[in-house]
């Protein structure tokens, strides 16, 4: 089993075997998070460019930490303090970064499709760290890894997603991944955030239903994925924060309607007291901090996978003609 793409732009095109492969490749890196010495030299001499055109703290730190634990160096571009503010186009900025010869580009951008667009113009691997409302593949993978660790398997889980699903790339990546393992989805939130079109975003045959009462949505759930509510989207008269709390907040009392061993995930950062109560966020069913730790493991696996094997053309064929470097390289 190998991964057949140069980039990781979305989880939608990957099949169940490829997704399982990516999750399995993250496991050795989970172990490394428990080592006293967490730094490897595997990608020594490689450079990872982190181009964050949209604000991000945890994803940027997570990718940066993943790179440095593999021994790679990073180049950082943050939109706030960059030429983007001076009006440079996305392509010019990316070409400039690429001219500094990184071995991989990690990009976050507010426009859906930005990572794909950039990948078509570059000859190095591109990892999508979130593009608009499209996908956030590394988040989908770390969520799935967390679920698989806690549940033992991803097969046929009941997944309830709460909140602003229409704007959520996290929800989309989760659905594209988990649907391939037969998971069933219940989407719940204010009607304007859970439009009918969402029922058809998964692969053909995916079971996705919309439910507008949270009590009903939580019934039989194995996993509750709580999305961050953008507080700037909560306003009178359409929907006030008070209404949201009353109707959709995940409280301990409501969580009891899910299966007794249900787990709670949140991509962070959390608005405590809005979409989730502190009691649930800090409770035994919460996996929030595991998600953060797993995020580094998943991103280490992705960087290792996409940059370690990028050898010069013909290196593999040449190696196969030398016994020392091929069959017996491991001796």
């Amino acid at each position, binding site marked *: 089993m190998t991964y057949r793409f140069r980039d990781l732009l979305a989880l939608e095109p990957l099949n169940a075997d490829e997704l399982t492969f990516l999750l399995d490749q993250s496991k*050795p890196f989970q172990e490394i998070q428990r080592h006293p010495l967490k*730094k490897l030299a595997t990608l020594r001499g490689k450079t990872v460019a982190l181009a964050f055109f949209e604000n991000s703290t945890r994803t940027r730190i997570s990718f940066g930490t993943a790179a440095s634990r593999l021994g790679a160096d990073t180049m950082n571009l943050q939109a706030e303090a960059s030429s983007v503010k001076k009006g440079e186009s996305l392509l010019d900025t990316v070409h400039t970064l690429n001219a500094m010869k990184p071995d991989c580009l990690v990009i976050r951008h507010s426009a859906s499709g930005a990572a794909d667009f950039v990948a078509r113009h570059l000859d190095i691997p591109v990892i999508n760290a979130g593009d608009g409302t499209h996908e956030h593949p590394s988040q989908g993978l770390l969520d799935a890894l967390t679920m698989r660790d806690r549940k033992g398997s991803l097969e046929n889980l009941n997944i309830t997603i709460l909140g602003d699903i229409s704007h959520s790339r996290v929800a989309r990546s989760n659905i594209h991944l988990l649907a391939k393992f037969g998971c069933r989805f219940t989407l719940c939130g204010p009607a304007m955030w859970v439009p009918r079109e969402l029922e058809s975003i998964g692969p053909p045959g995916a079971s996705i239903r919309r439910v507008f009462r949270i009590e009903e949505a939580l019934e039989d759930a194995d996993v509750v994925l709580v999305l961050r509510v953008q507080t700037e989207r909560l306003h009178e008269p359409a929907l006030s924060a008070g209404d949201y709390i009353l109707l959709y907040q995940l409280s301990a009392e409501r969580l009891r309607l899910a299966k007794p061993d249900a787990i709670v995930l949140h991509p962070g950062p959390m608005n405590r007291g809005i979409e989730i109560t502190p009691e649930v966020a800090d409770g035994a069913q919460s996996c929030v901090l595991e998600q953060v730790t797993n995020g580094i493991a998943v991103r280490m696996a992705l960087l*290792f996978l996409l940059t370690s094997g990028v050898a010069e053309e013909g290196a593999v064929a040449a190696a196969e003609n030398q016994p020392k470097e091929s069959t017996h*390289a491991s001796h």
Partner: protein
Amino acid sequence: MRIVEKAQLMSASEIDRTLRRLAHQIVEKSGGTKHLALIGIRRRGVPLAQRIAQAMRGIDGVDVPVGTLDITLYRDDLSKVAPQAVLQSSDIAFGVDGMDLVLVDDVLYTGRTIRAAMNGLFDLGRPQRVSLCVLIDRGHREMPIEAQFVGRTVQTSDTEIIEVRLREIDPEERVVLVDRQEP
């Protein structure tokens, strides 16, 4: 290119006898099994380490912990081996600080695997001593590394390959010397 089998180096029963001898030698030389642990290097070092530990139970009645180590992340030839390296899990469930560790592998060749394995081990802590046990030593070292416990030393040419086939992984159990011949 044709792969031709040139000779059988060990039968299944010879492998078994050799592993029992190695188990005796390790116990004898360690002077006590209190801090002793075996680390099998993936892939074929793993069943070998487990079998040596099994043999040790028969000698001293002691349970020697066995760990497994995947050295992929520590290799110096990643991009030369495969376009994509596939990782396996390492599993060392005990602390290595102060331990007397024996690395176990099937074939000792260039020494690069052992160099990588030691890097991996030292990320886990500071063992008191590390020694090396291999089923076959075929020479051609590229590193200053030697094995303390050797099943059999075999003179080989550069084009030859030693294949250790073990029942846990392969359809048969024996050690063969094969050669690559240009057509």
